[in-house]
């Protein structure tokens, strides 16, 4: 069992007999929320507290900026402590959690402090993709203190968190606009609009709790024996009766995974869901189209969100499960001009390049380019499963008949055309039937929905597990 060893500590165990300090924002309290047993540490004059301790039984490195020391402004010495923690975590191969509450660099130290912040950036980039880096923002984090978290793998924001490059006062002076800190860089805007925040939490406890969960899901798995997941008959009834009906994919994912897991960027591009969780104890990252939003269409924003998620999973060897029900890319000039090709290419790049095990499940339909983007066989999926009745095609059968037989149908009377069209649609369905897709190797197996967790677990266990040797650039 690992014990909390505050770095630079005098060797005595941390004193937990003292009553909790009046200031809930002090590092000792905040770090104690992170570890399995209370045992944070205090900041020294540098304004940064550092600690190492068990999270769900295994070690994690952490640093915490003390807002009680000059508002948490980053000194050169404090930055050096952060660099030390990030490097130690990299050497040990364990996650590092940063608790942020800082106005930025300490202005009175001048370029020395700025230089310190630069060294933090460099340390974080060097550790990127090597060990999971989780940032928890618990108060204002401005300038360098905002870019620090933004460089890491996952950003959790509490309700009190505010992140921005330049604050309201500078904005007012330069552009004349008046805007409050919350409207400028609060958890809502970063969760829904900017994509900076991955998880929103109501308070310190919930935010640090999310970091505990993330550390456990992203780190290299221990010796836990994964189990064979039980059948879930409810999965047979989870899709709407009518194939054209939209539905929320959330309940389906909850039946697939052991528990809720943790969803990242839930309010941004909600037409795709990215969720970390466990399947029979195995950690997995799930990427799922969500038909209740935009019909589950892929968009530029959804592609970028999923690409970053897949790359992060790949960096830490977390297997990816794609749950596919996608009608295509959302058509329109807004998407084309918004860079759907550029952002969509990120998702193709992420899947095609991933070496972590990746399994695809087509629940209902997968059409055209969006079929490929959701980890098709040709993109390198280790296994592709389909539920009975799933449609995989260049486009839906009706649309395909319209394109392929437009002239022939136009030459017929209205009545004849309707009959002929129905005939052709049936033929088109046969041509793209699951039997044929299995025979051609595009799909490995059509599976009973109830057995889905077990089939995916088997496929994960037999896949050659790899992980990327690349950095996790904040896409």
């Amino acid at each position, binding site marked *: 069992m690992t014990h909390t060893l505050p770095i630079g500590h005098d060797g005595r165990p941390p004193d937990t007999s003292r009553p909790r300090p009046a200031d809930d924002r002090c590092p000792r309290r905040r770090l104690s929320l992170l570890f399995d047993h209370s045992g944070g540490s205090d900041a020294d004059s540098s304004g940064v507290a550092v600690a190492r301790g068990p999270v769900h039984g295994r070690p994690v490195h952490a640093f915490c900026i003390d807002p009680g020391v000059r508002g948490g402004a980053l000194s050169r010495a404090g930055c050096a402590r952060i660099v030390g923690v990030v490097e130690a975590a990299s050497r040990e191969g364990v996650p590092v959690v940063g608790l942020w509450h800082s106005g930025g660099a300490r202005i009175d130290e001048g370029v020395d402090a700025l230089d310190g912040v630069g060294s933090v950036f460099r340390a974080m980039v060097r550790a990127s993709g090597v060990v999971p880096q989780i940032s928890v923002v618990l108060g204002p984090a401005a300038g360098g203190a905002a870019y620090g978290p933004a460089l890491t793998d996952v950003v959790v924001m509490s309700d009190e968190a505010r992140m921005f490059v330049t604050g309201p006062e500078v904005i007012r002076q330069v552009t*004349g*606009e*008046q*805007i409050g800190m919350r*409207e400028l860089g609060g958890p809502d805007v970063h969760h829904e609009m900017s994509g900076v925040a991955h998880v929103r939490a109501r308070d310190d406890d919930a935010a640090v709790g999310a970091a505990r969960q993330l550390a456990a899901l992203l780190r290299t798995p221990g010796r836990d024996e994964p189990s064979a997941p039980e059948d879930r008959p409810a999965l047979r009834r989870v899709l709407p009766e*009518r194939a*054209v*009906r*939209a539905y929320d994919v959330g309940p389906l994912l909850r039946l697939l995974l052991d528990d809720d897991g943790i969803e990242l960027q839930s309010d941004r591009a909600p037409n795709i869901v990215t969720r970390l969780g466990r399947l029979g104890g195995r950690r997995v990252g799930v990427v799922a189209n969500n*038909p*209740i*939003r*935009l*019909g589950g*269409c892929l968009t530029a924003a959804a592609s970028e969100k999923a690409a970053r998620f897949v790359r992060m999973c790949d960096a830490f060897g977390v297997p990816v499960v794609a749950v596919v029900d996608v*009608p*295509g890319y*959302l058509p*329109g000039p*807004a998407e084309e001009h918004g860079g759907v090709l550029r952002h969509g290419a990120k998702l193709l790049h992420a899947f095609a390049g991933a070496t972590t095990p990746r399994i695809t499940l087509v629940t209902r339909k997968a059409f055209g380019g969006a079929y490929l983007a959701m980890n098709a066989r040709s993109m390198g999926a280790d296994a592709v499963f389909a539920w009975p009745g799933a449609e995989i095609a260049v486009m*839906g059968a*009706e*649309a395909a008949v319209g394109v392929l037989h437009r002239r022939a149908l136009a030459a017929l009377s209205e009545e004849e055309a309707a009959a002929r069209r129905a005939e052709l649609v049936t033929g088109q369905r046969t041509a793209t039937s699951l039997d044929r897709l299995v025979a051609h190797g595009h799909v490995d197996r059509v599976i009973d929905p109830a057995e889905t967790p077990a089939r995916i677990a088997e496929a994960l266990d037999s896949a050659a597990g790899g992980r990327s040797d690349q950095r996790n650039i904040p896409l």
Partner: protein
Amino acid sequence: MRQHDDRVITRRALRAVSPEIPGVVLEVTVRPGTAVGAGDVLCLLESMKMEIPVLATRAGTVVSVHVAAGDRVAVHDTVATIE
């Protein structure tokens, strides 16, 4: 000042609900006076050969409904307003 003004307008417009995706209205499921919760279905659109709901963005009471079955709606159109 322009961006700031836009922001105020956006906030005021929170009461108007627009579809996320263009389509043809299949069915309107609320009428003025209907109490809705955030995420409740206001109407169904046919789009991308699917039936896609327009969801209430907040809880409240439907004040007005601006579409009927058969209407073609665009992303910036108002489907209903909620107070």
